[in-house]
């Protein structure tokens, strides 16, 4: 491609002043345009990030002075008597919560995308309906479900049990330690599935129809066509969707905060809730809370690394 530029009619690296050779042709204007973004990235992300690492090495209570304690916060979280057991429980619950929710969203999202990919009347309407939960703010979704799960005869699920199935007991969906985590996961899945549906549907529609038809004519069954044509065609969409969703699901505090606040007896204590609890709400130990985030950080670095490579792929080709 020949680049013709009004500002440099002569072009050619030799003719340019040294600054442009080293910093690039448009460096002045480029950095000027990037300045606002860079200010934001540095002051609001790089600075808090570094100060978070520093904070995790300090003993600091909100409003109080900071004292340097080295790795003591990490030791207390990983091996300590007071927080050790709770922190390990938090790790396990975060994994269970994220893993189950992502797996369920993946299955339901695939199922609903395959349904919507069929041809039938009112397809646009159905698509709009399937999409709805994802458009509602997550706190609002959580409030709605708190009312659906309500442990009195006024809550929808208990009401249905009583009036339609003649049940005599009330189920405490959010207050029963054995049920609470699954109830919260149900809400996460309800809201998160449409994202998968839409991503997969877009992916399905980009798979050329001829391939699929040819396989059908050759006598491939539904399952075979799914496994050998649709699934490989969707592979990259599936990877991106799952990675994005894993990052967001694991880090979201909204559902847990509104539905259970991490309770009952820490049965739904995911790590952002735990960091909030010891940093802001309860013990007000900012240093310890910062350490919680730092411990989880490497995991997300790995996820983000793979995701970035996937998402920047078009640029690599250009």
């Amino acid at each position, binding site marked *: 491609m020949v680049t013709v530029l009004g500002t440099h009619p002569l072009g050619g690296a030799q003719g340019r002043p040294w600054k442009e050779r080293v910093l690039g042709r448009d460096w002045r204007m480029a950095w000027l345009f990037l300045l606002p973004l860079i200010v934001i990235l540095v002051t*609001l992300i790089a600075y808090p990030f570094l100060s978070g690492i520093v904070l995790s090495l300090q003993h600091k209570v909100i409003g109080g002075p900071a004292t340097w304690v080295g790795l003591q916060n990490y030791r207390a979280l990983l091996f300590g008597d007071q927080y050790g057991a709770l922190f390990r429980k938090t790790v396990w619950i975060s994994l269970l919560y994220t893993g189950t929710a992502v797996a369920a969203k993946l299955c339901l999202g695939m199922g609903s995308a395959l*349904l919507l990919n069929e041809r039938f009347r009112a397809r646009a309407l159905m698509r709009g309906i399937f999409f709805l939960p994802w458009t509602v703010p997550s706190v609002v979704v959580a409030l709605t479900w708190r009312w659906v799960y309500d442990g009195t005869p006024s809550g929808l699920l208990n009401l249905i049990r009583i009036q339609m199935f003649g049940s005599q007991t009330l189920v405490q969906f959010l207050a029963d330690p054995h049920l609470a985590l699954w109830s919260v996961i149900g809400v996460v899945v309800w809201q998160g599935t449409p994202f998968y549906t839409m991503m997969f549907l877009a992916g399905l529609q980009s798979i050329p129809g001829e391939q699929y038809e040819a396989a059908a004519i050759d006598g491939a069954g539904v399952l075979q066509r799914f496994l050998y044509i649709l699934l490989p065609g969707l592979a990259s969409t599936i990877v991106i969707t799952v990675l994005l969703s894993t990052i967001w699901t694991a880090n979201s505090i909204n559902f847990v905060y509104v539905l259970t606040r991490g309770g009952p007896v820490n049965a739904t204590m995911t790590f952002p809730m735990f960091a909030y609890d010891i940093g802001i709400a309860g013990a007000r130990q900012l240093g310890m809370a910062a350490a919680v985030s730092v411990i989880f950080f490497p995991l997300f670095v790995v996820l983000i690394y793979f995701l970035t490579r996937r998402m920047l792929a078009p640029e690599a080709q250009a």
Partner: protein
Amino acid sequence: MTRRPAPPPGAARVSRSLRSGLRRAVLIGGLAMFTVWTLFPFMWVLETSLKPNRDIFVEVSLVPRHVSLQHYVALFHQSEFLAYFRNSAIVAVSTTIVAMIVGVLAAYAITRLSFRGRAFVANATIVTYLAPPALLFIPLFQVAYQFRLTDKALGLIPIYLIFSAPFCTWLAITYFRTIPAEMEDAALVDGATRLRSLLSVFLPLSLPALAVIALFAFTNAWNEFLFALLLIARDSQKTIPVGLAQFIIGDVFQWGPLMAAVLVASLPPVLIYTLAQRWVVAGLAAGATKS
């Protein structure tokens, strides 16, 4: 997708009609299940918001017996809901405008200008966009205190730029890449400056895409909860998500007005996404939302 019927060799015809019947049954059954699963919470919200308290708590029934607007009246007259709504609108609109300006300038530089460090800035943008704010919320809480951003709705705007600015930049990059360079080069040859060409060639071409990016940025800010929760304690300064989440913390569970609030608070994003759904789906593929 059209299904051309393959020449059926005799007996296969029976199994074919059987299979198409089965296909229909699976399709209808599946769609019905998903529809019920999706819609029942909405129905329950609507029903609760229209039932008088007596029907909610005392003589509960699945099918509503009386309809009343009392919860809506209570919501607008006896609660701070209008203040929450106004705060949310101001914060979300301002965040969107600032983030769009920052994002468009940066994306233009990254896609169209040649300078050292371009790849690094592009990478930094996407990494910061993907980095979850929950990892940063403890130190950010401290930073917000240092900058005195707490307890006022407007203080949320700079905080929200953390995710909306890299987000708008990244989406604008993915779109700007699709605009052929020749269009702009022609303007530059004619003697237009970079800024002029950005304003007169680039922006008009990408206006529809930018509108969708702005919608995403708006709803992300409209829905944000964690930082609003951390930074705002004064009732008059709360945004909708925090205001509603704390509706419930009070002594009495005001489910009627709360469900009315849920309905009203969901309307802006639901309308926006439903109307713009076709474009939204394309934006999703670029990783367009955090929720």
